[in-house]
Each structure stands twice: as C-alpha cells, then as structure tokens.
C-alpha cells in the first residue's frame, strides 16, 4: 500500500480526475459568478460592465440587509432546535424509552422523508385561520385561549417563528438518529463507571456523554448549518417569503434579483456573499472542534 501511495504518478492518477471534476462542478461556477458580479443587467438584456458598483450597492440595499437578518435569525434558532432537540430525542431513545423504541424512532424520523412542499401545505393547514380555523387555532380556541388565535403565517411578527417550528419538526429526526448512533457507540462500562462514581443524570451528561459526543454534535451542527443557510424551498412552500419580506431568505432574494428583476450581475454578488457566509459559518463551527485537542 505504502509503495502505491508513495508513487507520485499513482497519486496524480487518483487525484487529477477528481480535481478536474471538482473544478468544473464547484470552482468554475464560483469563478463564473465572480466574473458576472462585475456586470449589470442580464445576459442578452442590458448586459454592461459596471465595475464594483454591485458590491457598493450591496450594503446599502435594505432588502439585502433584511434578508440577511432573516437568514441569521433562522439559522440560529433552527440549528439550536434541530441539534438540541435531536440530542434530547437521542437521550430519550437511549435512557428513557424501554418499549416501542422502534415505533417512536420511526415516527420521529418520518418527517425527514416527507417532501418539503407537502410539509409546507400541511403546516399551512395547521396554521390556518380563514375560512376555517386550522389545528392550532382550533386547539387554542377549544382550551379557552381564544385571545391567542391569530393568523400565524399571515403577520410578520409570527411568520418566521412558524416557519422555524416547521423546519425544526422536519429536521429533528435526522439529527436524533445520528446522535443516537453516536450514543450507542459509547461503551456501557464508561457510563456504568460514571454511575458508580456517583454521577447524577446531569453530571453524567456534562462530564461523560457530552465530551464523547462532541465530534458528532459538531458534525450535526455543520449539517444543520449548511441546511439552514440555504433556506429556500420550505419558506417558499409555507409563506412564499411573506408577509412582506418577513421570511425572505438570502437565497430567495438572490433568485428574485437574478431571475425576476433580471439583474444577474447583482444576483451573483449575493450568491458570492452566501458562499462566503457558508465558509465563515463552517469555520466558526469547526473552531469548537479544535478546542478539544487542547485537552
């Protein structure tokens, strides 16, 4: 094996085809977008070189800043909800559920395989207020909380929250299964030793489970981050970015700018910003990983 990997020719043979493909699929479009970002208009329609104007415009564009804020709020809440909720579920599977483990796991995982559009329609019905109350408003009015009955996805103040709940519900199953797998990998004798040493539930989690789960939690965070940063289809299915711009994410705004407003150049600038946001976000999450090596 060492002989093969020591041979530069063999390494080249292994690496170059993949590198070539990667360049075409990933690097090239990024460079292309970068090139496009110096133009105004849309290819074929008023396509003119405009220097760095698009970049200057970016930070004075209220719509862009609003979409960025929506995205950041969404990423923060949904990441915590999906991974935190997933962790709680995994702990429940391992330590609390004795019967019906498989049934419960299947039910929790079920939303993951549902098409986003179907989930969007389902939640639109749950949040419905007119012409008939949906599940949520019916429940509220049945238990005497009529004052809380409101158009959940019809007003800016609750729409983003409603969307976040939907996406946490959808994603929680995926993360719970990954973390449950990681929990099963922790040898029982370690947990038992902890118990013998007098750990209560919280200490067991804090000093034994959490450190051992850390790599998996970080992986889950990266998964969740990359899923949430590109928020698009779930918002499109539930609220279509509304009301107003309350749930319009960066990628939805980019799509509108590039394809509806016919400003592919400016859309490319936003795309590049999303690209940078992804890289920065992943870097930040990975910083937590590095810490561990100091121990």
């Amino acid at each position, binding site marked *: 094996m060492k002989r093969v990997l020591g041979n530069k020719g063999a390494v*080249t043979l292994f690496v170059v085809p993949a590198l070539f493909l990667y360049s075409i699929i990933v690097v090239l479009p990024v460079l292309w977008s970068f090139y496009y970002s110096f133009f105004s208009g849309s290819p074929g329609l008023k*396509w003119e070189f405009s220097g760095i104007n698009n970049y200057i415009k970016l930070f004075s564009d209220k719509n862009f800043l609003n979409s960025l804020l929506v995205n950041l709020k969404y990423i923060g809440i949904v990441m915590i909800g999906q991974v935190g909720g997933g962790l709680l579920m995994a702990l429940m599977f391992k330590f609390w559920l004795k019967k019906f483990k498989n049934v419960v796991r299947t039910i929790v995982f079920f939303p993951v395989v549902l098409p986003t559009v179907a989930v969007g329609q389902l939640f639109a019905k749950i949040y419905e*207020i007119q012409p008939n109350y949906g599940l949520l408003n019916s429940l509220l009015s049945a238990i005497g909380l009529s004052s809380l009955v409101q158009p959940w996805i019809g*007003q800016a103040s609750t729409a983003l929250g409603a969307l976040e709940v939907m996406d946490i519900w959808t994603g929680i199953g995926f993360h719970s299964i990954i973390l449950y797998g990681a929990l099963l990998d922790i040898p029982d004798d370690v947990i038992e030793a902890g118990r013998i040493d007098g750990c209560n539930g919280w200490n067991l989690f804090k000093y034994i489970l959490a450190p051992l789960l850390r790599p998996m939690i970080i992986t889950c965070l990266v998964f969740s981050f990359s899923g949430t940063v590109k928020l698009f289809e779930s918002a499109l299915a539930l609220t279509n970015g509304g009301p107003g711009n309350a749930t319009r994410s960066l990628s939805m705004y980019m799509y509108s700018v590039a394809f509806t407003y016919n400003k592919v150049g400016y859309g490319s600038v936003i795309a590049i910003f999303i690209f940078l946001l992804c890289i920065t976000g992943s870097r930040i999450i990975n910083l937590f990983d590095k810490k561990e090596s100091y121990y």
Partner: protein
Amino acid sequence: MRKKILATLLSTAMVLGVLSGCAGTTTGTTASEAPAEAKEEAAADTATDAAASTSDFSGEDPQLEKEFHILSIWAEDNDNGVLINSICKSYQEVNPNFKYEYELVSSDDLRQKVATLVASNDLPDMFVYESGKPIVDLIEAGQVADIGAMLSEIGSTDYVTPSATSLLETLSGTDTIYDLPLGLNVEGFWYNKALFEEAGIEKAPETWDEFEEDLQKLSDAGIQPLSCGAADKWGATRLINAYTVRSLGADAMKNAAEGTTSYTDEGYVKAAAKIQEWANKGYFGEGVNTVDMNTAGSMLMTGKAAIFYNGSWFASNLNDTTANAAGEDGIGFFNIPVVDPSVSAADAYSMNCGNILCLSQAKTDEATKWFVKYFVEHLGDVAMETQGSIKGYTYSAQASDMSGYTQLVLDEIGKAQSAFTWYEATMGSELSDAAQNNVQMLLSGEMTPEDYMQSIQDAADMAAN
C-alpha cells in the same frame, strides 16, 4: 521529474478550467450582441421575403414548410391552451406542411424561462408573456416582432378589436402592438345578492361613499363585507389601485412611474390608508394574508363574504355549478365606484388583456405571417363558440349556450368607454415585488401607509441604480 509531471498536469487542469471560463465569457458577450444582429438579419429576411412574396397575403395559403415552436402556460386541455391548439390543428388542415411543438411552462416560471431563452438567443416562434413593463424590456432589446406592422402587411388589422389594440399600445407605451391579446377583461366587484338583501342594501353602489356605507351596513349585519386573496398579493393591490385611480385619475400610476409625481404623494398614501382602514375595521375577516384568490372566490360563492374584487374571468368559476353555491343569478357585478366623476368617469373600467402572445423577431418569416393571419382571423370565433369568451378579436359566431354570467361580462365590456390599468402595470419587477410583498404588511397593520408607499418609492430608486 515526477514532481514536474504532477505540476504540469495540475497546471493544465487549472488552465483548462480558466479557459473554459473564458469560453463562457465569450458566449455571454456574443449573446448580448446577438439581438442587434438578429434584428438586422430578421429585417434583411423580411426584406427578402417581401420581395419574393410580393407582399400578397390575400390569396390561398402557399403551404410553406414550418416547424413552429410555441411556449405556453396553459395545458392543452385548459383555458387558452385549448384555443391555441385548436387553431394550430385546424391550420394544419389548411397547411399540411405546418408542424408545431407545444411546450408548457408554469406561469410562475414564465419570466425566468423567457429571460434564459433571451440570453441564449433562442426565443420560441410564439410565446406567452406578460403585458406592461415585462414586454417593454423585450421590445427595447429588439427581441419581439412588430405585430402591428405585420397585421397591416397581411391585411388582418381589423380582426383585432380597436379596444384591445389601444389597451396593448398603452401597456407597452408604443404606437404599434408587439403582442397579440388573449383576453379582454374588465375588473370590478362581484357581490353576493342574497347577503346584500340580508343587510338591507337595495342596489349596487355607484359612488365611493355609497360603497363605504354598504360595507358598514354589511359589517353591522354580522356579514364579512369583503373577501380578498391577499395571499396572492395582487388581489390586495388591486383595491389600492381602485381608490388611487378613482381619486387621482387614470394616469396616476403612470405619472408616478415616470417620476412626474412621487409614490409618496398624499393621494397615493391616502389610497393605501383606505385599505388599511378597512383591514382595521375587520372588513376582510381574520388572517386576510393567508387567504388565496381561490378561497376568497369560494367565500363569495358560499355566502361567507359579500363582495370580492376580481376580473371578468371569474365568470368561469361562477359558471361551475358545483362550486357556485349562490346559483345562476346569485352573484352580481358592479364597476369600481366613483370618487369624483370629473377625475375618473363611471364608464371607465379597469381592463386588461390577460397574458399575451409574442413572436420572436429572429424567427419570424413568411410562414409565420401566414399562420398569424389564420390565427387572428379565427381566434375570435373559436373562443366564442367553444368557451363563450371574448379574447380581443372580432367574432361573428354566437355561443350556443351562453350562461347568464358570460352575458353579464359581455354587457359590462360593452359599457366600457375608457380603460385604466392595474396597480403594477407600469412598474418594473422590483417595484411590483415591493408593492405586492408589502401590501401584506399594510393589511396586517405592521406597516403604515406612508411606509408602504415609501417602500415602493425606495424600490423605484433602487431600480434606477
């Protein structure tokens, strides 16, 4: 040595990558120059054709060979799709050498699809598009054929009704038409007669004051006065448009678009405030932003709301006896009530031509013209015979079983002496998006009328940059 080989290989890969980037660049630039070339070519072609055919389109169809590509948003068995296909099929009997391909795209994706096709210089022969600002961009880029000139060349100008022609000209701001109409609709308020009676209202309102009194009466009687599909957004901006035009005149939105007035002027703000006031009074019921146009329409038909703003195309829903619980004569129609008759007269209607048909400038040839001739000369009759609808073409046929609602619409169209357009007709897509997205915030009370109009003005400023 091996290091060298590795370095060479890797740099070759990089260079190839960069080169392919450059290749793309070249295509991009060519595409942007293409329209002008295409235009010249097409102009040259037209000249040649004209010379060859001696511009005589009065005789028999010469049965020219043609592969005709149509891009549409209606399925073959639905709405205008039926008409287009039926015309194409019957034209094939006249010209067996005419072959057509009917491509379907969702109406939401239409603009993107056309933008992509423009970029790759591959617009289909005939395609469905949107009138107003979107088509202006294509006209300016020289992508669509001058249909007005073509119709006079082929001697079919009279088959498109003058009202449709003038509406299309107004919408594109040109003195000729670059598109063919696929509808001639009036818009206004549909109302549930039983609910009006229940609230003690004897006749449909004619002035804005009467209208507001009636709304109040309905509300007092415990009836939801208005249903509005604000989830689809345009249903709500139409209401703002109604008051804007009636209080400021038919040119109000055009003036703001051209910059002679500002969207933030008092009159415009007042119209937005009017709609918000209705929302605050609960006229739209709860959660208006979650109701789409279909639901709003069925609320009218099932007696859950008394008045619903929509176009004359809503008559096809009313004709559907399974959906219309109000029955054959249960729903009436009134034009937008007048604020000041000297500003906007009672016989002025909000009108539109629905989606329109354009022809690719680059692909228009003599065979296309023969097809267009057949198309405009037969569409009016086919539409009236099969669907009982008016499409903006002259017709001699009579529908065999015209329902009361269809007749009602025809009567209203007949009453129209002048037309005004919808709220977003003069707006580019950025403004139109701002107007439509933020109207939901206006209705939910999370945005003041001033901020709402300011957001449209901001979008206008942004679009100008």
